[in-house]
């Protein structure tokens, strides 16, 4: 019997990983975050960043923003798996909407004196980072922007006496008048 070639999926496996930002609107009830996180760990999906907060307290709605990586098939699975959870209202792939804005906030502590201190201030100014705490030997900068801008700023601070960083993770929203 002449068999057809059996390479139907072989290229699937070599699909490159993509990074997607998902916005998930959920009922804000006990355990809902554990459900979402449990799904990711239980099924072996990646979480690059996770941001959660209640966004509409009257309706008890929270918005979870997840940055994840995977092949297109895995990303599709993640969305379906999230969508079928009972307290999940909507899952929107912000990356696929093509017009989303992503922002992250970081607080960056830098310690040093002399030229390093001046250079840190100068760079902060260039990145539109604000000084939110200062001592004679340190600064805490607040910086907002997309994740790569923040990472770049942190990299620049490293030789200038970077002590520690606290990042919020990504929040995302679509452009234009429509909500999710």
């Amino acid at each position, binding site marked *: *019997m002449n*068999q*057809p*070639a*059996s*390479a*139907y*999926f*072989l290229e*699937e*496996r070599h699909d490159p990983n993509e990074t997607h930002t998902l916005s998930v609107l*959920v*009922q804000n009830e*006990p*355990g809902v975050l*554990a*459900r979402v996180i*449990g799904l990711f760990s*239980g099924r072996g999906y990646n979480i690059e960043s996770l941001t959660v907060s209640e966004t509409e307290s009257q309706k008890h709605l929270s918005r979870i923003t997840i940055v994840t990586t995977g092949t297109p*098939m895995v990303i*599709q*699975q993640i969305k*379906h*798996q999230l*969508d*079928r*959870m*009972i*307290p*999940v*209202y909507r899952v929107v792939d912000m990356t696929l909407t093509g017009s989303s804005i992503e922002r992250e906030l970081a607080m960056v502590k830098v310690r040093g004196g002399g030229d390093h201190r001046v250079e840190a201030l100068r760079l902060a100014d260039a990145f539109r980072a604000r000084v939110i705490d200062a001592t004679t030997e340190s600064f805490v900068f607040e910086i907002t922007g997309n994740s790569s801008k923040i990472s770049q700023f942190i990299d620049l601070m490293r030789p200038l006496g970077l002590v520690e960083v606290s990042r919020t993770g990504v929040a995302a929203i679509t452009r234009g008048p429509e909500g999710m």
Partner: protein
Amino acid sequence: MTDKSHDPNQMTGAAMIVRALIDHGVQHVFGYPGGAVLPIYDEIFQQSEVEHILVRHEQGAGHAAEGYARSTGKPGVVLVTSGPGATNMVTPLTDALMDSIPLVCITGQVPTHLIGNDAFQECDTVGITRPATKHNWLVRDVNDLARVLHEAFYVATTGRPGPVLVDVPKDVQFATGTYHPPRKSDVHISYTPRLKGDATQIRKAVALLANAKRPVIYSGGGVINSGPEASQLLRQLVEATGFPITSTLMGLGAYPASGPNWLGMLGMHGTYEANMTMHDCDVMLCVGARFDDRITGRVDAFSPGSKKIHIDIDPSSINKNIRVDVPIIGDAGNVIGDLLQVFKAEARKPDIKAWWQQIAQWRARNSLSYRKNNDIILPQYAIQRLFELTRGKDTYITTEVGQHQMWAAQFFGFEEPHRWMTSGGLGTMGYGLPAAVGVQVAHPDSLVIDIAGDASVQMTIQEMSTAVQFELPIKIFILNNQYMGMVRQWQQLLHGNRLSHSYSEALPDFVKLAEAYGCVGLRATKPSDLDGAIKEMISIKRPVLFDCRVAALENCFPMIPSGKAHNEMLLPEEATDEATAKAFAGGKALV
């Protein structure tokens, strides 16, 4: 303040639970009492509408409820206590989740003020069972209890069915609050399962089916879950199209095994004709099945030349393992009905004579054949005799997990849905005996047989005591080969015949064990004894443990070695040592 003492909807949490069960038409609850559910048991004691079936281990309650649900289409209800009661339920909950069985499990919990305190018999029940349920709830306020219970029943039984759990602290059971009967607003508005298939997609599917040269229908448990009408519609679709049909383990009975278009089960231990048809088809219609690894074998060689249509109620089943061309989200019965209508209106039965001739050649390989033996009972022969001697009777079959389960699937012909209860996805040894208890509770006058193995049956054998107490005449038909047969088969095939811990040392005398439990023990050791003993078993109106001594080293074929393609099956007559070693080379790491 108004006087609420005469308001009939004012009641304790414990009373609400029993009331909700009644409002949802529950007639039987499987359970085991304990400290944290005593108020509920007190309510159960004082009423007669809900009958409580006392099991011997909480796992037994879970599987019994699964058998009950699978054989009736109604949700199975379980009531267990906190801590160990809840943890013992994890296996049946996971089992029900994998096989999409509707279960409502109510667990007791320590009082709210003790939660988190490592109190006696406390555990994080909702945390532990979160990945084991479709959804679960911890109820902290008695006034939320009615809503949560109604939502629990709704979630368990709608969409893709599954197990749910409601954890009720003891103080909430004692507290008084307001009950309300089920109403629409009890359900999360975020939960909206989709039942009706997209019309455009259905048209696309019909176009593919109408032009198929080598089609196959591959149906699964979703058709059974959808209800008996779905099976009827599937039969009509097979009739209207003239297509061959195969089914997963979970889907047996949706299309009758005696039907002319039946190819037998597919997958790892499926028939040669079913797997070859899947591999060589040009159009595949998958209904209510999920391309599980036991079905597909090696995914990159799975049915490489076919266009695939996939009907499933769960969007996450689509494109999970196998990329499909025409996905249709919806309830199996609903979509088959629409599909059938469009097909009848717009298409004609395609001419697939050549395809049927090809299938006839594959069938002629007779892949389920085995060498007859006059001295020793072969397990395949035992199932065949059991099937023949129960034909025409009102029979329900449950199984444990292992070789006997596969032989039952291969050799017992199912004519109707809801007659076959087996643990497919999770593969839970010990499922069949308690499941038989549950089936018999639902169908007291039917013949309920658990086809078991000597190892599996010992995992939940204590439920014989339940069967005796409630006068449930279940028949436990043990294919006793004194091995964990499937484990041994894999050790023989993949681990150089080193039979590490797969021999059933120190087996009990099952006949004496039956007598100890107060039921009937039978034994057959020779083929010539078998028919008489089976007839005797059927005629006894009490629980029976049947010790059927079968050939110890028989293995289950045909078999697709793990990680191989459908057209790389190993047939029984080809399973020489050399061929086997070659077929299984490199597959050791796969499950």
